[in-house]
Every structure is written in C-alpha cells, then in structure tokens.
C-alpha cells in the first residue's frame, strides 16, 4: 500500500515531519496536553476492561490503539461542533468533556445511553452500524438552515463503509454541501473480518465517487489527525461540503470483551502495530527534544491512576435504575396505555411482601 497517501506529522520514532498541505501551528504546551489526553484515555479504557473482567460491566468495547485518532479529531472540534459517535469513541467523549463514568452506564446495563448529548455536543452511542452517519448529515443540514458557523463530525469504522446508510449519508451530504466531516477509523478489523473483505479500494478513495475529497491520515499520529481534521472542519464551515477522513489505525484489543481475536488474526500483526503506538511516539518526541521531564510524565501517571480509581468507585457504587424506568421516557407526551401497564405492574410488585404474595 506504499503508493497510497498517508499524512504523517509525527513519525513512529517521534520525529516531527512537515506536510505542506497540512501545516500545523502548535505549541509545546498543546502537545503536552495531547499527551495527557492520550494517557488518560488509555488508562480509562484499561480500567473499563478490568471492570468488565471483574463482572462490573456486562461488556466493553475497547478503544486501545485508537487513542490518537479519537483525541486528535476530538480536539479539532470547537464549541458547538457536534459529534456523532459509534460505541467506541471514548477518546472523543474525553475531548468533548463527557464525564468518563457516564460512558459505562450502557455497558453496565444501567441504561441505553446515560448522558444528555446537548451538554457536550456529543450524541449518544449508536450500536446499529452506520446509522449515525445519517443523523450527523441531517444535523449538519440543520446547521446550514440556522446559518451557524459550526460543523458536525460523524464517526464510523471500516466495516460501516459497507452499510447502505453510510453511502446514503455520503450522497445526501454531497448534494446538499452539508457541513459534516466523515471520520472513518479504519482499524483493519470488523470483528473477525479484515478490511479486504469490505473493500477493493482504499476507503478514502471512495469519496471521489461521491464528489468530495478523501484523505488518508496516520491514525496513530495525533498531530496529523488534528491537522487533517481541522482542515476538513474549516472546509465544512466555509460551505464547501463534506470530507472523508480515513484514519489508518489498528484495533489493538478485541472487538469487545466478548470477542477472541486469536481465532482469526496473527499475533505478529499486533506486534508490528505496537511499534506504531500512538502514545509512545509523542513521548519520544517530548523526551528527544527535552520538552518534558520525568516529573511531567509521573504527574500524568498519577492523575490517570486517580481518574481510574474514581471511575471504579463511581461505577461499582452506581445504583441500579428504579423499576418504573422501564416505562418512563418511552414517549415525550402522555400515553394512557403505557401508564396503565406501569401502574398495573407496580401494583403487582407491591402485592408481594418479602417474596410472599399478600
């Protein structure tokens, strides 16, 4: 795939490169902040995985390895830019300021989405593959009608590009010049299926067929992702329509904690991608250029441990929902049949005392 484009600003060895098409003005302080983001997001994911292994979560979808794609794109957003995630965008949620423990509610079985999307302009996780790309496009059509200066970013994976909804979203966004950025994290695997089973062409090249630009970026390079996403968002804001970004990355973990990748992929592939780790290269850059010392790294580790510890107690102490929640919020307006079902069931429950029927 050497003939294919791959925008890179920070090499896996931590060397700062320049890409004339994507100039990035960034201070050392900002790079240090990105490093902190990456470490925090990985620590969050490690803790959530452990919580699942210990039975505190029913399931977990790991973001391990995809931190740079998520943090880089998430940090490119400005206030008011709306993000439509899949179920794995923990790093984007972090960048958007969603309280980490909120992301765990659905995986613990407390709810199907436990945050108010309007608080952080971060939509609920969507499990049906690709469905959210149309919501993002419609939201962007609303932004157009409001004559607002914001943009929308739609997240999806390589597998989702086979879905009809994603292709319909590309079509709608293209013909309406909707201010939406399609951010595809090509992590090479859709559960057990490699990218080759989804497409015969590089994903970013598909955009051309829909009439908008596509760009492939090193998804493990937080600086390149930031630069490329900023450019795409600027283009959307200028009324020039959508862009497809293919963030070339790798799913270092399983699809979810219920999956077993050893059944379908080689450990050697994982080892090769470990050399391209998104966090290690930022650390190398900072050390190599004496931009951070041991004290800096230690303080972030400490902060990450504290966050993980709070996450653990927050989720272990989380209360189960009350029974009436089954019926609440199905409709926004009163619904007599649901009210009748609810009161009948509550009366039924109340007819029991300590397990005995009254």
């Amino acid at each position, binding site marked *: 795939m050497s003939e294919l484009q791959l925008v890179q600003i920070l090499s896996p060895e931590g060397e700062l490169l320049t890409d004339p098409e994507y100039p990035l003005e960034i201070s050392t302080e900002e790079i240090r902040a990105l490093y902190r983001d990456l470490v925090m997001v990985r620590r969050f994911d490690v803790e959530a995985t452990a919580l699942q292994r210990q039975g505190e979560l029913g399931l977990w979808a790991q973001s391990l390895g995809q931190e740079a794609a998520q943090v880089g794109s998430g940090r490119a957003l400005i206030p008011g830019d709306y993000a439509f995630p899949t179920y794995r965008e923990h790093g984007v949620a972090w960048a958007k300021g969603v309280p980490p423990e909120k992301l765990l509610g659905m995986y613990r079985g407390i*709810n*199907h*989405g*436990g945050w*108010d*999307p*309007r608080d952080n302009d971060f*939509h*609920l996780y*969507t499990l*049906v593959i690709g*469905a959210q*790309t*149309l*919501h*993002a*496009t*419609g*939201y*962007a*059509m*609303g*932004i*157009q*009608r*409001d004559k607002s200066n914001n943009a929308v970013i739609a997240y999806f994976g390589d597998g989702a590009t086979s879905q*009809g*909804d994603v292709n*319909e*979203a590309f*079509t*709608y966004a293209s*013909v309406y010049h909707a201010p939406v950025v399609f951010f595809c994290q090509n992590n090479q695997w859709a559960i057990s299926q490699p990218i080759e089973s989804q497409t015969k062409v590089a994903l970013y090249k598909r955009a051309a067929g829909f009439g908008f630009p596509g760009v492939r970026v090193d998804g493990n390079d937080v600086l390149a992702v930031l630069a490329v996403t900023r450019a795409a968002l600027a283009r959307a804001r200028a009324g020039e329509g959508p862009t497809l970004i293919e963030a070339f990355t790798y799913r270092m973990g399983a699809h979810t904690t219920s999956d077993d990748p050893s059944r379908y992929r080689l450990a050697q592939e994982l080892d090769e991608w470990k050399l391209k780790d998104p966090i290690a290269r930022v650390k190398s850059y900072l050390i190599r250029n004496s931009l951070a010392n041991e004290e800096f790294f230690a303080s972030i580790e400490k902060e990450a441990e504290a966050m993980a510890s709070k996450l653990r107690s927050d989720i272990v102490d989380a209360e189960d929902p009350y029974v009436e929640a089954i019926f*609440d*919020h*199905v*409709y*926004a*307006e009163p*619904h*007599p*049949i*649901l009210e009748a079902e609810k009161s009948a069931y509550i009366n039924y429950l109340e007819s029991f005392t300590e397990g005995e029927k009254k």
Partner: protein
Amino acid sequence: MITLGKAINMGLRRALTEDPKVLVMGEDVGKLGGVFRVTENLQSEFGEDRIIDTPLAESGILGTAIGLALRGYRPVCEIQFDGFVYPAFDQITSQLAKMHARSLGTLKLPVVVRIPYGGGIGAVEHHSESNETYFAHTAGLRVVTCSNPNDAYWMMQQAIQSDDPVIFFEPKRRYWDKAEVNEEAPSLGLHQTRTVQEGSDLTLISYGPTVRTAIEVAAVCAKEGRSVEVMDLRTLSPLDLAPVFESAQKTGRVVILHEAPTFLGLGAEIASQITEECFYSLDAPVLRVGGFNVPYPPARLEEHYLPDLDRTLDAIDRAFAF
C-alpha cells in the same frame, strides 16, 4: 367541499406558516408536489430549504430527518408508497422510535412520517400495502390514520405538533374523496376514536380507507332492519378503546374491518381486548374482516383481496347467527 389530499396539503401549509421549524422532505415532494400532489405548491411558497426534494433513498430521508429533529426542526417526511418504507425500517424502528428513551427523555424527536397506504387503485406491486401493524407494534411511535378530509386537515397539524414521532397513514384510494372541512377548530384530539354513526345491534370498527366501506355497510344493514354503530379508530397507537368497549357492551356484537391481513393485524389486538373487557356483554365472538395472509395480489385480483361491502355483510350475518 375539498378532497382528502387537498386537506392534507392545507394542514401542511398551515403548520408551515405557523412554525418556521416545520420542514417537508421526501422524494419528488418539491417541484412535482408529490406523486399524489399532496405537497403541491408548497415549495414555491416556502422555498427549497423547507420543502426538500431528497435523493432517492428512504433510509436517508428518515436518518437525516432525525438529525434535523435533533437540531430543533420538525420534519414531515413523505414515503412515496407504503411498500417503499422498508429501506427506512431501521431508522424508524431502531432510531426514531427509541432515541427519546435512549436519551432518558432528554432528546425529542418530533418527526412525522407520511405514508400513503392501502390498495384499490389498480397499482403494481409494493404500491397497495397496509403495513400499519409493524409500526403500531413498535414502542416509541405513535400511529394514526385519517378517513375523511376534516380529520386529514386537523390530524396532520396535530401530528406535527406532537413531540413524539408520528407515523401518519394516508388512505390513498380516498385522496379524491370530497367533504367539508371546518377550519375553525378540531372536533377531536389526535388520539381519539370517533363514533361515526350510532347504532344498537352491532358495532362495526374500522379506520382509514375502509371507514367509507363501513358506512355503506351500515346503510345496507339499516334497510335490513339491523342498526349498526360505526366507529373510526383514527388512532392505531395508542389505541383509544374506551368508546369501543362502551359500544360493544351496548350492542353485544362486534365486527372489525381493515385492509391489512387479519393475522396479527390491529383487529386481533382489538378483539382480544374487547374479549377481556366486555366478555359478559358479548352475544357473539368478535369477528374480523380483512386482507388474506398473502402478498398483496396483482391489480386484476385485488377486488378479491380487499374486504368489501359483501364480505363485511357476510361477517355481520355470521355475528348475528350466533
């Protein structure tokens, strides 16, 4: 006197005038005014940003409507024909219907989905289905259908005002039926069953395109000395069955008439509930008249599929034979 199709057009126009957040979107709804002309002249009056001609992709219509609703708009989507709604089925049943609950009540999805439905117009395949049960069976949706121009005018506006998603079934073979429309005030709320005409011997329940059939049936029965009470459900989810129970307790005999297949159709649910609520008042089992459990037949055979005056009279005879 105006047609049912024109009444919907007037209802849309009034909603568009009163609330700048209301949008109309769908295939051919703008320049053409819709294949049934229901949205005629709306684009020239309200512009292309509000009357949106969409690409030919139904999931896209619904998916982008959801996004627009999240942004504060109130989209009214048109699905061109009943049988073309299935590509949008995921967006309707898994996204539109469930997003309010998924968000624990924080997000509202005021989206109306207009679906011309039912047969009787001699159409090709996929243009004559009555698929309301799929949507009535999905929690989170409201499902309504009109049978006359006055209801069409008011129910469309009430559906648009609802903060919940509403699937609005339009009886396409009645688009050209004419009647008076009272533009002053609605006579009923969106989710209320109407007693079309009172009777004492049998309750005939229907909705949408077969309400007119039911009225014709009642007229024939009257000549035979049978007094039939005709009810127009109007709301399929939630059902408003209190007036139906009251009627069944009065008459003791109930026949339910709809175009959809009787197997697991609305009639099955209604019959079950009447049995639970009115068991000791019934003189006969609740009977159903409807479509067969088959794919909608070719046009040359549809008169055999569609429940008509004679098949309904036959069911009424059977109800009286008990």
